[in-house]
């Protein structure tokens, strides 16, 4: 089989899943587990942003805001109301979807580059607001967030929690991929390729874009819940523009709209700094250059996916 054929084979997703499941058998120190769990959460973030940027072609530069909204909603509800983390999930979905509508409603009619800058501003607003308000804990944030538990079953052991996260993230990745091959997903890609033509063909572009935006927001919010469960403490410092750009680099690197590529891109961005400690000072500057080089040489990302409309990008 040629390389592209291998990379596009159906079983490649299962292979990735198996690799994620087997990883703790290779190395299971607490530090390694925490890095791998973070990487899995990062994969979820990249998958969510991929819905917005990759499928629908809308640039969101404040994606960390939805991550923050999800983490804070879960954190505040679980600590103030003494709820188990799982019970906050419906509220998280509602609040992040609401945030997506709130910011998307007035701005999705705008030119696409205005949307980019509005989301940038929105990301800053959320972060600064979280640092200023009392009920969000100010600059020190929220701590003492309970770990994940299902029924009476405690999942807070690092290895168990890792598996729980891998399962949730896998469902999220597959869910996003299924969404992309649905009727809605085809409409998203149509809008990405040519918004005017899509509109002329009867697609309600405004509502379709809003749907992508809200879906991305919910994915980001749920990643926030996992993040809060993992660290048990959150603060505004975790939700900076840097975070938003790193997620974007993962999406662009892997190939916008190709979920398997995005997963690989996210794992690379999340684990890269750990593997390349010596060049840590240079990595962010290198990521910036990487974005430019990819856009010029391989705008579809490094993964040799099948291009074109009407085919599955999953």
């Amino acid at each position: 089989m040629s390389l592209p054929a291998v990379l596009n084979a159906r079983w490649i997703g299962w292979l990735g899943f198996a690799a994620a499941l087997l990883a703790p058998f290779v190395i299971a120190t607490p530090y390694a587990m925490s890095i791998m769990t973070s990487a899995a959460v990062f994969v979820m973030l990249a998958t969510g942003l991929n819905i917005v940027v990759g499928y629908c072609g809308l640039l969101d530069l404040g994606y960390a805001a939805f991550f923050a909204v999800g983490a804070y909603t879960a954190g505040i509800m679980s600590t103030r109301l003494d709820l188990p983390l799982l019970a906050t999930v419906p509220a998280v979905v509602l609040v992040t979807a609401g945030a997506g509508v709130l910011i998307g409603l007035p701005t999705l009619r705008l030119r696409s580059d205005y949307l980019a800058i509005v989301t940038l501003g929105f990301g800053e607003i959320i972060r600064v607001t979280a640092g200023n308000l009392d009920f969000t804990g100010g600059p020190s944030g929220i701590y003492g967030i309970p770990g994940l538990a299902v029924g009476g079953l405690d999942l807070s052991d690092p290895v168990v929690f890792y598996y729980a996260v891998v399962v949730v993230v896998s469902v999220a990745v597959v869910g996003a991929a299924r969404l992309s091959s649905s009727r809605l997903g085809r409409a998203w890609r149509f809008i990405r390729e040519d918004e005017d033509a899509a509109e002329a063909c009867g697609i309600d572009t405004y509502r379709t874009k809003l749907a992508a935006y809200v879906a991305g927001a919910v994915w980001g919010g749920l990643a926030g819940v996992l993040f809060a469960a993992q660290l048990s403490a959150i603060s505004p410092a975790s939700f900076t523009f840097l975070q938003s750009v790193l997620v974007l680099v993962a999406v662009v690197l892997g190939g916008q709209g190709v979920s398997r590529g995005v997963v690989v891109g996210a794992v690379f961005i999340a684990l890269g700094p750990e593997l390349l400690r010596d060049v840590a000072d240079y990595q962010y500057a290198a990521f910036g250059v990487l974005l430019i080089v990819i856009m010029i040489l391989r705008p579809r990302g490094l993964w040799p996916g099948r291009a074109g409309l009407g085919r599955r990008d999953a």
Partner: protein
Amino acid sequence: MLQVLWNGIFVGSFYALVALGYGMVYGVIRLLNFAHGDLYMVGAFVGFISLSALGVRTGGVGIPLLILTLVATMLVTGLLGVALERLAYRPLRGSSRLSLLITAVGASFALEYGVRIVAGADPQVYPVRFDLAALEVLGVRLSGQQLALIGFALALMVALHLLVSRTRRGRAMRAIALDPRASALMGIDVNAVVSQTFFIGSALAGAAGFMAGAYYGKIDFLMGFVIGLKAFTAAVIGGIGNIYGTMAGGILLGLVESVGTSVLGGQWRDVLTFGVLILFLSIRPTGLWGAPVAERA
């Protein structure tokens, strides 16, 4: 209250200076240059490094030396802007808007963290504090440095105005903003004019960065991020691509900020600014003095 207004005008003139370059580049090639704020930051660092290299220590600095440094800074940031356009943006002219925006984010990131590699992550302290006599007008304290800096900013704005409205080059810029293809057919060297636009816009940003460094005294590699967003906000308020609107937008934003923070408290300043940005884009995306722009211009 008058003091608050004066401070607003002062800060606003910085915003206007950065916004002008932002708006110029956007007007000519329809590119949101996210790296623009970072050129402001680079300007602050170039000024810092050259003053340090000249052996300037805290204390009195001659005005000629400062002007010399300012010119050198503008030259360096201007050339950096040209290089950025040549290497990153020009190969992508004609490709999708999304690709261009992502490239611009990459450029911004590369500049920020590139400077961090060179100059370190810790804030640097500017070696100059030039103390000039202050004026009292109607109970408002106008410090000498504020007056000098506003003077500089105004001079640069007037120069830009003359360039764009009175010269052949300015006419070429306006022509390209209207229709690049027709301009090329009329014999305008589009690439050369775009390079010049980048040079001027980046030089203005560098000048503002140097002046801000000299005034506030402290610089760091992320200082361009927020100012870039604010400059864009100013450009949007004034109507993007409209030079006079942009100047007015900058001053207006400075006023809104300083009045707003004196009411709400300083920690809400950025929230207020970006709130204004979102409000404007939702209600009046063409700004106060802008012409409507279609998605496919």
